[in-house]
Every structure is written in C-alpha cells, then in structure tokens.
C-alpha cells in the first residue's frame, strides 16, 4: 500500500481514538430488541476458521446484526468452526433446522492484515449463494462483520442491508450537548461537535460526508454544514432572526432551510456554502421541517390551515397540496427512499406517535405504542424507521420496521439521546 495513505490512515485512526476515549466511557449506546417479526428465517453462521486471533470474532458482529434486523433467527451450529473451502456439511446444518448458513476463514495476509473469506449456502436446495473475500486490519472486525451481514441480508431478502450505515444523534448530559455519529448498531460512537448550547436537527448529506444541523452557540439558531472527516464547518444560514430545519436536496448541492428574515418561519433554499438564497414557498402561516423526496417533492409542516399539518410542493416550484387530514397535529414528515410512503409524528389523544402514510392508498398506520415520539427518519433501504422517544423520563432512540413488527431501542447509561438521523448507504 502507498505509504502516504497509510500515514494518513494512522493519523485519522489516532484522531478517532481520541474522540472515542472522551465519549466512550459514559456515552456508549446499548441496543435492545423489543419486538421481532413473526416469521423469522432460521440461519446459521458457523464460527469462521481462524477468527479467534482477532480482538473479537467477526461472526459475533454478523450474528448480532442479522438477529437485530428481526427477520432472522440464529441457529447454533456448535463451537467447531467451518472453513470457507471445506465442503459444506449440509446434513449437519439441516438437522439443526437452518434454512441458510455461512462459513468462512480468517487468515493472515501479511503486514499485520487479515484476509476474510466467506460463503453463503441455501441449506434446503444445497446450493451456494455466493461469497466474498476482503482484507482488513484486525481492529476492523466490526466493519467487516457489517459488510458480511449486508451481503447475507441482501441475498436472503432481496433488499440491500443497512448494517454498514451510520446514525447521527444528539447526546445531552447535564448542560453539555454532543453531536455524535455511531454505527447503525450504536457502537463506535464518536463526537463530531460538543457545545454548551443546544444542537438540533442533524441532516446527512446524500453522500454521507457532511452533516447540516442547527446550533444555538450564538444564542440563536444558526445552520451549519460540518464535514465529518475533517471537522471543518461553515455557516450555511445565519440571517437576521432564526435559521433552522436544514434538509439536503437529493443531489447534495442545496439545502432547504427555514428562515425568519422576512417575517415568520418560511421555506428557502441555499447552497451548502450559504450562497444563493432563494424562496421555496410562501404562505400566511408557519412553514417548517422541509424534507426532499427522491421523486421531486418537498414535504413540510405548515399551520396555514390553523393546525400543523403536512403539505408538499413540487421541488421545482408550484402550488402546495395538503397531505395529512386526520387529526389536529401532524408534524415532521420524512418520505421513504422510494417516495411511496411517508412517516411523520401524529398526535393521537395527547400521545405523539410515529405514523406511516401510504401515499397511494392514503392508508395510515401508527407504528409505535409510545407517547413522546419525535424526529423519525427512514433507513436507506426503507425497512426501518429511526426516531426519538422517552422511556422513564429519559430520551432514547428507537427503531421500528415499516410494518410495525420489529422494534429496537438504543439508550445510553446516563443522559438523553435525541434528534436521530439515519445516514445514507456508505459509498464504497
């Protein structure tokens, strides 16, 4: 490998380690599965040959990922590892009741690195479903595990997995606010920004390299754009009055923001560097919480009709259409990645709950049984919805599948977690 790249990698690794050390102790998110699908596919992940030399087994990560998705049930195959090259023992796997299974080998590949090879099999049809080989540093066992889990998930469900994605959220402990980035399973949390003033509304750029958010460090809400790899940030909107609710355009070039420079809260768009401000829509009431869909709409919350409801305008300009009609409080819309459905928070008799609206049939479904849900956002494959809620007076993150069956919860030992945003698929 190019020595300069190596030095750079080592540099970032140290920086990450420092950030980790400061936050890891008290702020580690722990995940808990609170509901699972009804028909879970039995799957076995045999321990990989040679993986005991790693700091932690790759297959532990794979199993935890698949289990957490709520779609699979892990089947134990016993302690003896199965290598990627050995002929698969279909009889043994079938006798344990697994429909599919993976085997693999971890072997040193020189200069302290390891090659990980694995294969996936359909146990019933006794055929190979493919495999992969990758080279990694020993401390990258998590990343590797997530990628293997993504491969298996996609082969078995036909949809891309989201185990390699990241989430952003705000951790509040005492009077300290931290904007953190973690793996989708809550591990590997790193602080991108720490402040004594509130931070809200983080939004991922479509390529996952930047976050836009609202920080109150100037005693008023100002929108910043923050490059995660460098820590550099710039002001994207700091006009007279309040600046908030950033949302990226699908091409990652512009941000929809809410400004009050011309009166009450209205929708505008700006370039990510803060230039080129333009009005997106105008109304006699509050317009806020814009969200761009991939099929050309901007969804937003407006009280132009006397109560907060969800509306949409064509991203290229045009008349607003009302989208939500049931109830008197519907806020925080987020369209699904395919643009076919919408999640938002609806108030039902004093309870604020994440609700799914099928934009074609107009059918709604309340996805949660909690009471203080906020800030929903879709996973990039549209399968799960991440949101903030409260359990025992503490802010926690939760995720629910878009059919309402699979449920997970992410919380920290002390402090409140809130304002989650699910990041995009990583670009390889």
């Amino acid at each position, binding site marked *: 490998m190019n020595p300069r790249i190596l030095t750079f990698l080592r540099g970032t690794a140290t920086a990450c380690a420092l950030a980790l050390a400061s936050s890891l102790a008290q702020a580690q998110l722990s995940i808990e599965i609170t509901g699972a699908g009804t028909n879970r596919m039995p799957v076995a992940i045999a321990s990989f040959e040679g993986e005991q030399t790693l700091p932690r087994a790759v297959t532990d990560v794979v199993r935890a990922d698949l289990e957490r998705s709520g779609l699979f049930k892990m089947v134990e195959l016993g302690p003896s590892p199965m290598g990627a090259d050995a002929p698969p023992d279909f009889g043994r796997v079938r006798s344990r009741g697994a429909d599919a299974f993976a085997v693999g080998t971890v072997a040193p590949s020189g200069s302290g690195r390891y090659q990980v090879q694995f294969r996936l099999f359909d146990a019933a049809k006794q055929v190979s479903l493919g495999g992969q080989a990758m080279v990694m540093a020993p401390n990258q066992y998590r990343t590797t595990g997530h990628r293997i889990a993504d491969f298996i998930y996609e082969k078995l469900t036909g949809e891309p997995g989201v185990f390699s994605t990241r989430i952003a959220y705000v951790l509040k402990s005492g009077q300290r606010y931290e904007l953190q980035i973690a793996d989708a399973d809550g591990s590997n949390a790193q602080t991108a920004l720490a402040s004594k003033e509130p931070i809200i509304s983080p939004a991922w750029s479509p390529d996952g390299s930047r976050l836009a958010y609202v920080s109150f460090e100037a005693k008023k809400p100002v929108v910043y754009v923050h490059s995660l790899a460098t820590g550099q940030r710039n002001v994207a909107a700091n006009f007279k009055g309040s600046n908030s609710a950033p949302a990226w355009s699908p091409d990652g070039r512009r941000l929809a923001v809410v400004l009050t420079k011309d009166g009450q809260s209205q929708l505008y768009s700006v370039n990510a560097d803060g230039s080129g401000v333009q009005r997106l829509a105008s109304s*006699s009431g509050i317009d806020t919480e814009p969200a761009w869909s991939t099929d050309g709409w901007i969804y937003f919350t407006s009280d*132009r*009709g006397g109560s907060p409801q969800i509306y949409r305008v064509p991203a290229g300009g045009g008349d607003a259409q009302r989208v939500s*009609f049931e109830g008197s409080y519907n806020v925080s819309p987020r369209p699904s990645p395919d643009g076919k459905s919408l999640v938002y928070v609806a108030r039902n008799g004093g309870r604020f709950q994440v609700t799914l609206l099928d934009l074609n049939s107009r059918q709604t479904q309340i996805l949660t049984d909690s009471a203080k849900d906020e800030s929903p956002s879709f996973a990039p494959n549209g399968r799960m919805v991440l949101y903030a809620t409260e359990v025992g007076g503490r802010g926690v993150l939760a995720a629910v599948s878009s059919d309402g069956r699979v449920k997970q919860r992410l919380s920290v030992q002390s402090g409140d977690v809130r304002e989650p945003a699910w990041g995009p698929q990583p670009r390889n």
Partner: protein
Amino acid sequence: MVQRLLPRLMAALLAGLCVAPAAQAGLFDDEEARARINALRNETGSRLDKLEASARAQLELANQIEQLKAEIARLRGENEVLSNDLVNANKRQKDFYVDLDNRLRKIEAPAAAATEVQPQAAPAAAADPAAESRDYEAALTQLRGGKYKEAAVSFIAFTKAYPSSSFLPSAHFWAASALYQQKDNIGAAEHYGKVASQWPEDSRAPDALLGLASTQQARNDNVGATRSLEKLISRYPSSSAAQIARQRLKK
C-alpha cells in the same frame, strides 16, 4: 397617526421655547407667562396622552389582526378538509355505482334471457341456492387451478343442474374457456356462441364473441372469425374486447 401628531407637538414645543425671550421683553407679566406655560403643559400632556392612546390602539389593532389571521387560517384548514372530503366522497360514490351496476347486470341479464328464450321453462326442482353457488365455486376453483378437463365437465353439469341459475351465462362462458384450453374448439364454440346469442346483454357477451372468433380462427375458419369480430365491434364498440378485435382485424 403618529406622524400627523408629531409635527403639531413640535410646533407646541417651539411655541414653548419662544415664551422665555418674550417674557424678558416685558410683553407678558409673570402671571401671564405662568398661565401660558401651564396651558401649554396641559396641552402637550393631553396630546401626549393622545399619542400614547393611539400607539395603544395600534397595539390593539395588531392583536386583532393576529386573531383575524388565526381565524382565516382556521377557515382555510376547514376548507382544505372539506374539499378533501368531497373528493373522497365523489370517488366512493363512483366506486359504489360501478359495483352496483355490475351486480344489477348479473341479475338483469339472465332474467331477460329467461323471458325471451325460455318463456315456459319450468323452474327446476326447487334449486338449493347454497348448493348452486357451492357447485359454481367448486368448478371455478378447478378452472383457476388449471384443471381444465374437470372444470369443463363441472361447468357443463352445472348448466344442466341449474337451468335457471343467474350464473348460467357465466357457467357457459367458463365451460367454453375450459374447453378452449383443451383445444376442444368445436365444444368451446358451442358454449361461446350460446352466451353471445342468448345473453347479448350480459357483461361477458363481448368476450364470448371474441372467444368464438378465436375458436373459428383455430379451425382456419377465417371468414367466420372475421364475421364474429365485426359483430363484436358493431354491437359493443366501447368494450375492451372490441379493442382487441380491431387489432386482430388489422393483422
């Protein structure tokens, strides 16, 4: 309001400032000067009161505007909900109508056929409606399952067992379809022809004519096929079967 009051206030002020030199000039005595100052003070005071009152009135007005805006928003919201309800109601009404129309056709067609073709057909031994629909469903299930031979036998048996059934045109139609699938073109043509001639008002009549044409084509009876397709187009010009017929005629 404020703008109009202010210049007058300024004038009062200037007048007040003039007082002092004037007094020195001996035009007024002290008494008179004091009285004037008092008068001026009272006037300024009352004008200031008015100014404040007007600012207060503006505040009041601003509050009222705010309340009116809220009321307008509420009305706009009501309007949005009502127009959405109307759109939904219209759509639902249309769905109801289509559904009702389909049901009525099923009832009317066999009744009309019965009076025309079999005016004296004695009602067959008290038909059991439950058994009737059960047998029909069973035959349909066979057809759906691809058991064409069994389905054809069942539908033909059905037409004999329940000659006054409202399902009769459908049973003939499905019998024809099942026979056609088995390449029994003659048998299929018989049943398709029956549906087309005996129940011309039935919703399946256009499809029956199309099916008839297919069986004729399969037997290389191109003249007959063309005649059937033309009949279909002239009788049921707007049916989807007629559209297919037009395409076939073009070939």
